[in-house]
């Protein structure tokens, strides 16, 4: 069996979850801290967009941003000698873009369900804002954030449409597991396809178990 799709997917999903995790939490905290309702709604809409767009359309927009003929793409090419489109890095960009809304929404929900009185009480007790963020907000939002992280990881792993658009399906370079399944079936190699499918199913199953345990952690607090 050709292991390269599995390795590529692991690298891609591994890096993208780290990026998505921090970006999602930061974005959620920013939006939750906003006072003006209108700004909140607009920002929320933009950040949630990749969730509702078809992946190929999202991928189209990514190509529009990072393609070699586009300003941003040219910028990276000239100053960093990096061609973004159809490189391995593009698989990470695609995975991050598509999994980000899930992380953001989960983190935002987790922050919002923390009782506001807790934050206010912490203030009257003399706790500084940073301390409050870590010890009150994050500490109580952890179960929601963890399950958001697992969801985002699974989404990043399974990303196909946007990856196809901006990273292409280059064997050994950008062919992730989902793309490999597609290619093998298209080529008629059902055996190889079954193997890749089995790997994906096992990972998906483990993700669901992890999510449920994170949710149970939330309930245990009583």
């Amino acid at each position, binding site marked *: 069996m050709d292991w390269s799709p599995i390795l590529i997917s692991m690298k891609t999903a591994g890096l993208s979850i780290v990026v998505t995790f921090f970006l999602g939490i930061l974005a959620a905290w920013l939006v939750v801290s906003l006072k003006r309702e209108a700004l909140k709604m607009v920002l929320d809409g933009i950040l949630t967009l990749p969730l509702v767009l078809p992946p190929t359309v999202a991928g189209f927009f990514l190509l529009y941003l990072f393609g070699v003929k586009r300003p941003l793409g040219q910028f990276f090419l000239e100053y960093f000698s990096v061609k973004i489109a159809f490189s391995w890095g593009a698989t990470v960009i695609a995975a991050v873009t598509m999994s980000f809304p899930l992380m953001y929404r989960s983190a935002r929900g987790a922050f919002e369900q923390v009782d506001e009185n807790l934050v*206010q*009480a912490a*203030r*009257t*007790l*003399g706790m*500084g804002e940073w301390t409050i963020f870590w010890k*009150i907000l994050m500490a109580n939002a952890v179960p929601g954030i963890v399950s958001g992280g697992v969801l985002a990881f699974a989404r990043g792993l399974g990303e196909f449409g946007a990856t196809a658009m901006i990273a292409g399906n280059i064997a050994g370079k950008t062919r992730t597991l989902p793309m490999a399944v597609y290619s093998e079936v298209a080529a008629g190699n059902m055996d190889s396809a079954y193997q890749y499918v089995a790997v994906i199913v096992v990972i998906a199953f483990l993700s669901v178990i992890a999510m449920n345990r994170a949710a149970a952690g939330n309930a245990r*607090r*009583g």
Partner: protein
Amino acid sequence: MFLKRKYQSRESLSGTGSRDNLLGEGKLSLRVDIKKQLRQFLLQVQLEAGRGCLGILGPSGCGKSMTLKTIAGIQHPDSGQVVLGRRVLYDSARRIDVRPQKRRVGYLFQNYALFPNMTVEQNIRAGLQYGAKIRGDYGTRMAELVERFRLEGLEKQYPGRLSGGQQQRAALARIFACGPDVLLLDEPFSAMDSFLRERLRLELEQLLDGYDGVSVLVTHDRDEAYQLCDHLLLMDEGKVLAAGTTRDVFGDPGSVQAARLTGCKNISRIRRLGPCRVCALDWNGLELATGREVGQEITAVGIRAHDFVPLGEGEALERRAQGADNLIPVTSPSIAEMPFEWYVTLENGIWWKKEKDIHTHDSTGVVPSWLYVDPSAILLLR
């Protein structure tokens, strides 16, 4: 946190030297004079509190919790001043707005706001560490607080496992760990059933007696306010209706709204008949003699349901012969049985309450022929 601060957050002296407040308590006092536009009404409150407990009594949504929150600094008024002792906590004219962290205010939330991710011990330690700024060994102080608030054995428990009373004690322990200058209690018993309430009220009463600072208690429960607070403020729709010692406020509420808030059920509009005589328009034109002179601003009278004296036919005639006034004939009464009282409603709308015990069910003989009310018991209301 990213938004620019409009006001400075440093503290400053009030600059007026050490003047005694109206209550004559000396240095430690709380002065509040704020305005804040809320959705339903304009909140406008002025209060002064010295040592002891000031109660704010009013219906839900009248702005009492908001007032407390502006004192604590977790909500911001539109304009005004909040001064604690010689420290100016908020002053819109001088653009001062001290952060809640620095105000040294203890706030007991309605749901206690214990941190669910920390044990009781850790919650209290947060108060010691961030409030009292104790570094190093918390041991002795922690033990003192645990003993004082009867939390032995509960230190390692999470708040979700505690009963309502235990949670309240833990929250109070956390507040006292900080050593605040003023204690703000936001409806401390509304999250409890009445059975528990009675007992915990006694405990709180003892706690407040032993507390050396200013305390402000907000409630919609009359009995609570009466029992726990030496001074009282009546509020409705964002405005202060009456202020003074609790006994004075209950004894002479001053206005119709205030009378209602203190539990007076019998209120009638009046027409003035003479310096001490009125005609109660809502009670079928009943004429009453009042104990004090009825000024021009008086538009109504109130009589508390318990203030009527039942009289038999004979007694009533005797009194009438002696020239007594305020004899009310009991016509077509309706009677309702309550666990510990009879509620008697007269035809003209007056309510009367007579005590009974739980075993009495027979209402014969309860309703008298006449009711008498002493002129001095009639409340004159604006």
